């Protein structure tokens, strides 16, 4: 079962993270065009090789997203797909693109995630006020509208804090260990010029001195929203041979969706990435010890810690000490999120998930410059949507 590893990421694009966008406001269809151009240029192939596209959706057109984009980009498609997996969308896009390529449905698939919320504003129709609902749905008939939101259980901070609390009750908690995750990733961001916190190192005490947002989570353990955007091009071996960079083959994947709201998780502290990672490693025929760098979805530090445990890099319940014993920087013995992750590169909306795919690919292509991990050939990538509710694992290899 699974991929043969014959589809590769051949190009990457990632806009520098910005707190305040320096460029003009762009519609999302325009952001798609910009990122699509950047990624085919990066691959060194003509745009005309593209005959597949995976999208999260288009702000300007609620339905028919692939057709809208096909028309706007002027690229007829043999494969058009929409992925709705929150922070796991990008990783979910990559395996779907690889599967379509291996089936011979198409040759090259754009996986683009715009990340700028600065859109041109209509003079005639005022924009709706920004919603505070986050990942929750307030619509009539939504279980969250009826049973979660009325108690203030809304957004991401509180439910992730509840997960951390439960973890603490079952396994213990070391605030200095979760803080160290943020510190190591900040070190990585300081070696990556595109990161929003480039040039701003922090210490464990800085993290612990930052305000508690929802106990036990501190401000510096939460992602920073930025403006940006990211894309990859997934293609067959023929296109990969003609492309400019070392191809990064999609060797294995796993996907698991378990619930929407963690209240109803069967086990709050054993996350869906466990099953997804097992399937990815089995498909790729690789071991945990083969992994040279890990690009772990990091909306919160506790997400990284639990993902490393559940993906099998350390035993369940030992993550706190494991993190203290390992150097997670790009120079370390277990490099994680070598461009800073979303904690320190920044989270450009849903494009934050694509940051992890791009970071891993950049390393495997040997293009991480000051943050390059020596002898980096195999990478493990996770995507995480909702509140640890939908997760995707990828195994990528440069060759």
């Amino acid at each position: 079962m699974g991929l043969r590893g014959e589809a590769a990421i051949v190009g990457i694009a990632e806009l520098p993270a910005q707190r305040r966008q320096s460029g003009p406001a762009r519609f999302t269809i325009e952001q798609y065009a910009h990122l699509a151009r950047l990624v085919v240029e990066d691959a060194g192939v003509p745009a005309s090789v593209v005959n597949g596209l995976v999208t999260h959706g288009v702000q300007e057109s609620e339905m028919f997203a692939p057709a809208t984009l096909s028309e706007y980009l002027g690229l007829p498609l043999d494969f058009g797909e929409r992925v709705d997996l929150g922070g796991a969308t990008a990783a979910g896009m990559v395996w779907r693109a690889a599967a379509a390529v291996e089936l011979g449905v198409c040759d090259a698939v754009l996986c683009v995630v715009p990340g700028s919320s600065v859109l041109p504003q209509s003079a005639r129709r005022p924009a709706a006020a920004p919603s505070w609902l986050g990942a929750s749905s307030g619509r009539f008939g939504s279980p969250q509208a009826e049973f979660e939101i009325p108690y203030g259980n809304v957004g991401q901070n509180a439910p992730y804090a509840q997960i951390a609390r439960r973890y603490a009750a079952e396994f213990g908690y070391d605030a200095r260990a979760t803080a160290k995750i943020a510190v190591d990733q900040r070190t990585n961001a300081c070696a990556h010029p595109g990161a929003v916190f480039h040039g701003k190192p922090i210490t464990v005490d800085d993290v612990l001195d930052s305000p508690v947002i929802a106990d036990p989570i501190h401000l510096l353990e939460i992602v920073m929203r930025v403006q940006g955007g990211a894309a990859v091009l997934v293609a067959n071996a023929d296109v990969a041979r003609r492309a400019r960079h070392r191809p990064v083959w999609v060797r294995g994947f796993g996907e698991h969706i378990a619930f929407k709201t963690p209240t109803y998780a069967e086990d709050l502290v054993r996350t869906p990435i466990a099953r997804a990672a097992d399937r990815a490693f089995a498909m790729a025929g690789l071991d945990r010890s083969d992994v040279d760098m890990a690009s772990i979805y990091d909306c919160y530090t506790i997400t990284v810690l639990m993902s490393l445990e559940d993906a099998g890099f350390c035993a369940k319940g030992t993550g706190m000490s494991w993190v203290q014993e390992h150097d997670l920087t790009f120079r370390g013995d277990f490099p994680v999120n070598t461009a800073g992750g979303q904690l320190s590169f920044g989270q450009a909306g849903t494009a934050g998930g694509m940051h992890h795919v791009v970071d891993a690919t950049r390393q495997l292509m040997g293009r991480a410059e000051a943050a390059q991990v020596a002898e980096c050939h195999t990478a493990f990538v996770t995507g995480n949507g909702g509140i640890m509710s939908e997760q995707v694992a990828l195994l990528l290899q440069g060759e």
Partner: protein
Amino acid sequence: MTDPRAAAVTEPRPLPEPTPVSQPFWDGLAEGRVMVQYSPSLAAYVFYPRLLAPGTLADDLEWREISGRGTLHTFTVAERPTAPPWADAVPQLLAVVEWDEGPRFSTELVDADPERLEVGMRVEPVFCPVPDAGVTLLRYRPVPETAPEAAQAG
């Protein structure tokens, strides 16, 4: 990150609107009772209310009254409001309660000292009618300690 405290504190708190399927749950709360669905073929209580049993899709859900008592499965003390309607409600004691009958319930704690909350502690229902809204919310509070030995047994 925008500071939710800067937002107007007058934004109303969203209230639940019962659906045709969930109505018995809300009717129960109005009477001070916790009514939950049960699937005989699954031999399990089910929450939240559904049309068919989760997992089996069996068409055998029936309403039963439960005690409403349970344990604190997890919680957080939110020092910043989770959204503008709760700007004047911090700290929010957001909790997940596991009913003795099995299912978990998202709620908030009242009559509780945040410093003394512990995962696994016993909690009991507090029925909270919302004035003029025709709906009763179900909040929870720690079961008062009646004797020192009870506290140790907990």
